[in-house]
């Protein structure tokens, strides 16, 4: 009968879907609007209804006042969303690294299925894993919130320090000078390594003179490993350069991510014996084990740094 009123009520009804008293609510609003339009204008017309409806408010806002307003995740648990997601994702991340290194798939039923992955597949897989982890943690916190119980969630005390939003202690000027020096050193290193690579296709030598250098690695291994190491130097220099202009932790996160990818590439080098000089078999195995352990150690340290930066970023977002 009154198209605008019907459309308005229909819109409110849409936002109230699922509530058993919806029809009753709508009847009451209809009765109120019609009566007010008649009282204020003498008769109910589309124009008078328009005014009354406008005064009554937006359909979504009206509907929201009937909803109980219980949050999806209680404010006290919100910070756990990021804490637990970071924790779960770091486990996922480490398992991904292990799956790539040992070229195996494994299952921790019913929590994790880790397929056999290459480096590129792992990089593509990790964002999906992160979203899954976020979803699982959100679901658990949602269920806890809806249960209405006062549950104290565990979190190690030392980790609370990571939550604190402490400003960086160093003065801005000192920090800039340190970054500038670091960037200059890294840039010099990158340039020198790139120069050596352009001239000799490797940056690793047993003995070095410019007329007749003796390479440490076989040509193919020398080329590939040198390129990865030069990329690491360049990434370091670039990240320090960007830090001259911004103190955003995202720079550290990206830098950590790039470092991990490059370490992964180094670990994946398929050479049985990359050395151009003769090395006894027993010693070769020890050198390989030592280098792999060193790279894994660096990867773990970078991962810890990455997780720390992600936690601090997440806390900053929550604080806002």
């Amino acid at each position, binding site marked *: 009968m009154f198209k605008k009123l019907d459309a308005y009520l229909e819109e409110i009804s849409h936002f109230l879907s699922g509530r058993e*008293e919806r029809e009753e*609510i709508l*009847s*009451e*609003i209809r*009765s*109120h609007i*019609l*009566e*007010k339009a008649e*009282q204020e204008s003498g008769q109910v017309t589309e124009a008078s209804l328009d005014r009354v409806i406008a*005064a*009554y*408010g937006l359909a979504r*806002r*009206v509907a929201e*006042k*009937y909803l109980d307003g219980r949050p999806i995740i209680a404010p006290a648990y919100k910070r756990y969303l990021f804490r637990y997601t970071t924790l779960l994702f770091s486990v996922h991340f480490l398992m991904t690294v292990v799956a790539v290194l040992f070229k195996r798939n494994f299952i921790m039923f019913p929590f994790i299925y880790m397929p056999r992955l290459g480096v590129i597949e792992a990089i593509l897989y990790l964002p999906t894993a992160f979203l899954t982890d976020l979803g699982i943690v959100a679901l658990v916190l949602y269920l806890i919130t809806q249960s209405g119980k006062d549950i104290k969630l565990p979190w190690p005390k030392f980790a609370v320090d990571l939550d604190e939003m402490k400003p960086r202690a160093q003065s801005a000027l000192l920090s800039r000078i340190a970054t500038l020096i670091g960037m200059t050193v890294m840039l010099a290193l990158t340039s020198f390594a790139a120069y050596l690579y352009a001239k000799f296709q490797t940056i690793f030598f047993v003995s070095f003179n410019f007329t007749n250098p003796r390479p440490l690695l076989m040509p193919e291994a020398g080329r590939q490993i040198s390129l990865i190491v030069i990329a690491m130097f360049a990434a370091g220099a670039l990240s320090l350069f960007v830090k001259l202009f911004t103190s955003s932790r995202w720079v550290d996160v990206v830098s950590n991510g790039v470092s991990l990818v490059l370490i992964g590439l180094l670990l994946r080098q398929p050479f049985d014996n990359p050395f151009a000089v003769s090395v006894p078999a027993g010693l070769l195995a020890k050198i390989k084990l030592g280098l792999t352990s060193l790279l894994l150690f660096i990867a773990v340290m970078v991962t810890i740094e990455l997780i720390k930066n992600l936690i601090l970023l997440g806390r900053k977002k929550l604080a806002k």
Partner: protein
Amino acid sequence: MNPEIANFETEMNRGFLQILVLALLENQMYGYSMVRTIRDLGYEVEENTLYPLLRRLEKNGWVKSKWDVSEERPRKFYAITDAGRGLRSELLGIWRKQNEILRNLMKEKTHV
């Protein structure tokens, strides 16, 4: 009005409106008549706030409602229950106590 003061006013109104509605419903009334009466008393209430409040009070058993369909336009009438009277008395007690604390505090400040 300053938006920050408006926010405070909204917070303060929430409790006051409940007492006001419980006081008004000693005689049965329907929504629109309540809006007008409250306005005549010199106070403003948003219509879209009043109805959800009435629903919450009814859900908790503090008011009861009944549709009157004898007129051309059906109207839903509300009236206070005994439980509602008990609640109103408690709320008025709290309100009086708060008033007294503030009055005494302001008196002390004036003497200083």
